[in-house]
């Protein structure tokens, strides 16, 4: 019997699970595919987190710091899990370092899968001219600009008029039919930060519905009432680069009015989708994917339960969700692993 838990994925969910288990007294084997811990918030350099503009470091820093320094956590970066045999209480897993190709074998009591998501690649949908026209960027790319405090177009000049287009690669039969749940709130957070950074800028949110659920609704109210951000209900049919500006074609459905208006910058609220890392981990661990490619829990209301004894799930590899939810899921999965340890390791 072994007292170690394998955590696959070093984003918010995996880090939270690792910290909780180590605090609890268990050893953790943390396997992260990239060369950096922190998941999406660190990779894409989020400036701050919705809904309260908390600096990203405040939330992610302590988790990363703990895992990097704790003797209870063995971190394997640039690595993936290649094989998994055995059963609950005694799995044997192979971890391969992708840089040097070396493989190590480990015995673990249980496994937590927290392989996260990828942003929707907007170049897949030609409507938005992403990748073809300058100054069409994703919310993931805008985060880094905001963090630097320098929001400019390709000519180095700050934009005077910006359109955010909601639900890009979300709620759309031709791409992904689900809702990414956070991108409304994240886009509004960014629009406010853009106003704070640039001052003299007109911002237009082109939306179908505003889904700032729960306490995130405050972002929506503040954006209108304190920052004068404009909302246009509709969906964009085409973005066209005139050689100087971006012509955005859509309809203001509140007035039955087609519009074609010029903008300096277009920001796409790209959605959340399952990435290749999730598929890889599910394959190795023998987990089922749902029709969308997310990992399917045994029962949709109980996320932690993968359907395989001793393998638990957490975070956006199951469904789109916010960081506040992701962190709780990490803790919930850690609890399941702790229960297995209690049963199998001599007390």
């Amino acid at each position, binding site marked *: 019997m072994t007292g170690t838990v394998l955590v696959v994925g070093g984003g918010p969910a995996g880090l939270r699970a690792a910290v909780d288990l180590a605090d609890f007294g268990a050893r953790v084997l943390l396997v992260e595919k990239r060369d950096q811990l922190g998941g999406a918030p660190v990779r894409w350099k989020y400036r701050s987190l919705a809904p309260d503009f908390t600096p990203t470091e405040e939330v992610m820093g302590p988790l990363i710091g703990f895992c990097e320094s704790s003797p209870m956590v063995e971190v394997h970066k640039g690595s993936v899990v290649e094989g998994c045999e055995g059963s609950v209480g005694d799995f044997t897993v192979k971890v391969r370092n992708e840089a040097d190709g070396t493989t190590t074998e480990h015995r673990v009591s249980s496994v937590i899968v927290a392989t996260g998501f990828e942003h929707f690649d907007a170049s897949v949908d030609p409507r938005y001219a992403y990748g073809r026209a300058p100054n069409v960027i994703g919310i993931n790319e805008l985060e880094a600009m905001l963090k630097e405090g320098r929001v400019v177009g390709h000519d180095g000049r700050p934009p005077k008029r910006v359109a955010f287009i909601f639900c890009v690669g979300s709620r759309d039969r031709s791409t992904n039919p689900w809702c990414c749940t956070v991108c409304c709130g994240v886009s509004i957070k960014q629009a406010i930060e853009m106003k704070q950074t640039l001052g003299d800028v*007109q911002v*237009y949110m082109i939306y179908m519905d505003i889904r700032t659920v729960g306490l995130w609704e405050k972002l929506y*109210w503040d954006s*209108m*009432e304190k920052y*004068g951000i*404009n*909302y*246009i*209900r509709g969906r964009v049919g085409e973005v066209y680069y005139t050689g100087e500006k971006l012509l955005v074609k859509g309809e*203001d459905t*509140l*007035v039955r*009015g*087609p*519009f*074609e*208006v010029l903008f300096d910058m277009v920001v796409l609220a790209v959605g959340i989708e399952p990435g290749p890392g999730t598929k890889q981990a599910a394959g190795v661990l023998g987990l089922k994917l749902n029709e969308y490619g997310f990992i399917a829990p045994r029962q949709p209301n109980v996320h932690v339960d993968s359907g395989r004894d001793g393998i638990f799930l957490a975070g956006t590899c199951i469904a789109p969700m916010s960081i506040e939810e992701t962190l709780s899921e990490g803790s919930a999965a850690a609890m399941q692993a702790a229960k297995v340890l209690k049963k199998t390791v001599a007390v």
Partner: protein
Amino acid sequence: MAAEERKKEEKGRFIAERRYVDDQRIVEPEKLEAGGVDMSGRWGTLVLPRTIEEFDHSLFEGVKRLPRGGKVGKCWQCGNCTAVCPVAHANPMFNPRYLIHIVRMGYQAEIEKVKDYVYLCSGCGLCSAACPKDVDPQGVMIALSIAFKSGRAKGGR
């Protein structure tokens, strides 16, 4: 008055499928000259596109500065005001929610079409009691009527 009426009826009479086009979008200059040639009459008739080509918030900013218009920026277009408005139930051309939106976005042709209906507001205040965002639409209707009268409706197109 009779002459005025006739003029309205004759407006754009040369346009094929005349019924497709709003009155407000037809421009007929009295005199039109191009390259020294007199183009007055039917050749000078212009049909402005229906497409919105600009957002112009100047009128809206003016309304915000009027005594009872200050909270108009909070409106999120839910339509609660129109739902309870007795006038809107009687006349579809009067719609407080709609008036607020077209003024906010500066849809000039739409404003021209419906602005005179703002005076139908009875001042009953039912809308302001119902509004979930504390916009005070009743007050906004007063502010709009002042703004339209003072010619501030003439922003950009």
